[in-house]
């Protein structure tokens, strides 16, 4: 797992321990990986009361005396200690307490705590912005109303001068209380040779206020017709932009709902059995290999393997699969899922940051922050945007001053201010990330994990989808259906020999034969000289017999006469079964047929893909007849049979050369090269770490509907991004010239800075709201 986006609590200085800590941090993936074999755990504890550097030795010393502690490294800078080994957390805490300090666990829990903190910070920020808004609008609205009702916003008499001076001072108060952050931000950016939204707002409102103050203090310096004050514009713009920001904070909170939901799935407590007693402990304290007890209605706290009991588990929150799944002994359970009916005990296999749920959260977070290529143009423009707008504003003012009608100064001031205010770099900057955030979250809700923005964008453009047959279209759990004898041996004898030689093979068809023999209580024999012949079958010796088991090609190669059985094999293949020839000492002994049923919803899911104008091709190593029969049943017209595993990637390449954008769906392990070669690789139905890491998109449930959902979500997200980008580009491209007064020569229209402020404030809000619309997206035709 990439640890780059890992948060680590405060470290303010860099003493040597801190450096070690960083090193530890970087190596944490390796540590976590090695835990599998060594049954070890890494716990991070937060220490309170450690005031001096000498405490480090005391704390580390206390921890090192505990049996099971392998290493204890304290980072004095951020007051945390990292302990590796297999000691229980409560023992560590006790040891630290007896050394005179307080300690608590950090890790999993901190994720939801961080979320709570973030929500509180957002709320506080929202309230602050709303206070700013009220103050600014309390001055701006009456002033604007006065102007709209025909009140004179000009300075002609001394009484007017005094009145406007007071209002000018009040406006300065608004700028100070409600708009200070714009000015401070603008100044800091300026010093740093950069410019941002703050620069534009500060310049716009600052110019309007300064101009008005010049009119108040030295009216004679501007032409009579131009002695107009714009205090209402300053106050209104600050108020409206603060309001827009406040609403944006609220709307943004909604875009991260999916990740909140995932984090919310993490259980807080777990019941474990230690020393034959049930103990309720915090989830962070569950160790690998602990036996965890889960009662009906309880959440499964960590990943593990059932050791006792049977139950049904609702995994829909992770896989999107609504049907509960039955779990019995030796079945895997995943943390975050809900135990429905029975009580089970399971042995914890992955805890802490190593669980599938933690990996999913990390992956979704990372993907939500990555950008699809479509956003790059906006990024390039954003980098030059603000100084460009400032230049346009100056040009606009100069044009008005040189060529405008009287009062040219007032027109120049209004147009320059309005250009600065209307331009909205935020809408451009937000257009892509907001949609990606919601889209990736939405996909996760449907059990679809998208690796990054690029995968999201490419998935929306797929023209051809290659589906692996076994385990993708079919259940992937083949069963022996027919044994046709060709000599005097019994079915049991044949199965015994076949299963014995297949027990050395990892092929799914081999597993079917071995399972069939075990079901019938057939004892497996010892085989010698086992050899797998890729793409053809296997050979071995058993009880001094030379055995061959495989396809027609293998039989031909070895010169075995199968003529009388070819038509029988073909008949089996037409029923979508896979017939395999079995020969003993060079003579055909039997045909064993294995069938792998098509998943119940594969047909409808493939139809969904085809209805979206996606060409669906099935790839399989199986023989032609069987492949044809399966393809026909699944509603696929194109298929490629007898493909060797390494040829799958070539087939993908071939289609790419023909101009297709190819999606490849497979199990993520055997199909890894083809998945990597494809424009988008989909790993299906495993939810294991391997698949999550290797594929562009991981489908958490076995159903191919996940595939159609993934494409539908990508298309909807890309559509949303395009709407946002178009909106943001169009808004700025039309708004800036409009504000500069391009319509004035033709229609006599010049935009008011207040309207520009409102438009600017709501343009970014519109982008966020449009992205939020994606939350309502539902994949059709389920």
């Amino acid at each position: 797992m990439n640890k780059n986006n890992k948060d680590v609590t405060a470290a303010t200085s860099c003493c040597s321990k801190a450096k070690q800590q960083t090193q530890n941090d970087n190596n944490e993936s390796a540590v976590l990986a090695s835990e599998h074999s060594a049954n070890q755990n890494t716990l991070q504890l937060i220490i309170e009361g450690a005031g001096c550097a000498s405490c480090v030795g005391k704390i580390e010393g206390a921890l090192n005396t505990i049996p099971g502690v392998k290493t204890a490294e304290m980072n004095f800078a951020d007051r945390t200690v990292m302990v590796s080994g297999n000691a229980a957390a409560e023992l560590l805490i006790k040891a630290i307490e007896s050394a005179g300090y307080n300690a608590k666990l950090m890790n999993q829990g901190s994720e939801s705590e961080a979320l709570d903190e973030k929500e509180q910070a957002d709320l506080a920020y929202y309230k602050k912005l709303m206070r700013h808004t009220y103050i600014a609008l309390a001055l701006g609205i009456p002033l604007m109303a006065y102007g709209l009702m025909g009140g004179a916003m000009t300075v002609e008499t001394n009484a007017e001068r005094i009145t406007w001076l007071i209002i000018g001072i009040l406006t300065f108060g608004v700028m100070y209380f409600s708009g200070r952050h714009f000015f401070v931000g603008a100044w800091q950016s300026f010093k740093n040779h950069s410019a941002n939204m703050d620069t534009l707002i500060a310049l716009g409102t600052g110019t309007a206020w300064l101009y008005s103050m010049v009119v108040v203090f030295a009216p004679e310096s501007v032409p009579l017709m131009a002695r107009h004050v714009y205090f209402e514009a300053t106050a209104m713009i600050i108020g409206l932009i603060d309001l827009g920001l406040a609403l944006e904070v609220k709307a943004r909170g909604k875009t991260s709902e999916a990740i909140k939901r995932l984090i919310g799935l993490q259980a807080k407590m777990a019941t474990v059995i230690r020393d034959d007693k049930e103990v309720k402990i915090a989830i962070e304290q569950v160790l690998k290999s602990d036996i965890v007890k889960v009662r009906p209605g309880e959440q499964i706290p960590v990943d593990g393997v059932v050791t006792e009991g049977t139950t049904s588990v609702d995994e829909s929150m992770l896989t999107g699969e609504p049907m509960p799944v039955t779990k019995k002994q030796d079945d895997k359970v995943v943390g975050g899922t809900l135990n429905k009916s029975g009580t089970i005990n399971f042995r914890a296999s992955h805890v802490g940051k190593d669980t599938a749920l933690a990996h999913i959260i990390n992956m979704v977070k990372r993907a939500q922050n990555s950008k699809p290529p479509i956003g790059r143009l906006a990024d390039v423009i954003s980098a030059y945007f603000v100084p460009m707008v400032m230049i346009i504003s100056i040009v606009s003012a100069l044009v008005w001053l040189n060529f405008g009608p009287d009062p040219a100064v007032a027109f120049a001031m209004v147009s320059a201010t309005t250009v600065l205010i209307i331009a909205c770099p935020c809408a451009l900057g937000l257009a892509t990330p907001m949609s990606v955030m919601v889209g990736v979250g939405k996909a996760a809700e449907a059990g679809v994990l998208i690796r990054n923005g690029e995968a999201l964008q490419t998935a929306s453009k797929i023209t051809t989808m290659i589906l692996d047959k076994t385990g993708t279209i079919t259940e992937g759990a083949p069963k022996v259906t027919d044994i046709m004898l060709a000599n005097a041996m019994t079915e049991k004898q044949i199965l015994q020999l076949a299963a014995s030689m297949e027990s050395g093979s990892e092929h799914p068809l081999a597993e079917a034969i071995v399972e069939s023999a075990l079901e019938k209580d057939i004892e497996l024999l010892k085989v010698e000289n086992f050899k797998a012949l890729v793409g053809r079958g296997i050979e071995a010796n058993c009880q001094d017999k030379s055995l061959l088991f495989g396809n027609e090609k293998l039989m031909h190669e070895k010169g075995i006469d199968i003529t009388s059985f070819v038509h029988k094999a073909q008949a089996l293949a037409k029923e979508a079964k896979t017939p395999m020839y079995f020969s003993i000492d060079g003579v055909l002994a039997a045909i064993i047929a294995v069938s792998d049923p098509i998943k119940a919803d594969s047909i409808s899911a493939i139809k969904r893909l085809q209805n979206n104008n996606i060409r669906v091709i099935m790839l399989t190593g199986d023989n032609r007849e069987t492949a044809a029969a399966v393809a026909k049943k699944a509603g696929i017209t194109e298929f490629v049979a007898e493909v060797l595993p390494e040829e799958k990637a070539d087939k993908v390449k071939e289609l790419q050369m023909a101009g297709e954008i190819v999606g490849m769906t497979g199990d993520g392990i055997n199909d890894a090269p083809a998945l990597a070669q494809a424009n988008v690789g989909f790993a299906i139905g495993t939810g294991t770490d391997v698949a999550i890491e290797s594929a562009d998109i991981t489908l958490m449930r076995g159903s191919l509907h996940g595939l159609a959902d993934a494409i539908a979500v990508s298309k909807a997200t890309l559509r949303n991004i395009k709407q946002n980008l178009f909106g943001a580009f169009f808004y700025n491209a039309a708004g800036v010239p409009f504000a500069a007064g391009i319509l004035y020569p033709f229609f006599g229209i010049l935009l008011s800075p207040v309207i520009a402020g409102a438009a600017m404030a709501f343009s970014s809000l519109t982008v966020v709201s449009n992205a939020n619309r994606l939350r309502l997206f539902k994949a059709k035709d389920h």
Partner: protein
Amino acid sequence: MIIINVIGISLIFLIIWWFWLYKPNTTVVTDKELLIVVKDGVYTPSVIEVQAGSPLTLKFNRKDASPCTETVLIPVLEISASLKLNDITSVPVPALAVGKYEFHCQMQMYRGVINVV
């Protein structure tokens, strides 16, 4: 009028020079970590120089509650991190090859660059 025009045009050149042409001060990183303050629209420091091949931990101290500052991205490296408010968040950056690696907030209003030499 001529004076105003000259001032205007000078301002335009000043903007081009100040924001685009000027080479800002670079903070040369010799240690393995660097504290970056996120406040008032800027990362301080924002231009960082680091030797090729040496990993670095950027420690972001976020002091600005604006949602813009919440996320920092290094797009080329596919690194992203959520910055905790009023706290330090460590973002480890692997050893890099020579080049420029930009980092910024989601809206690109906060911007910085790691120059690897």
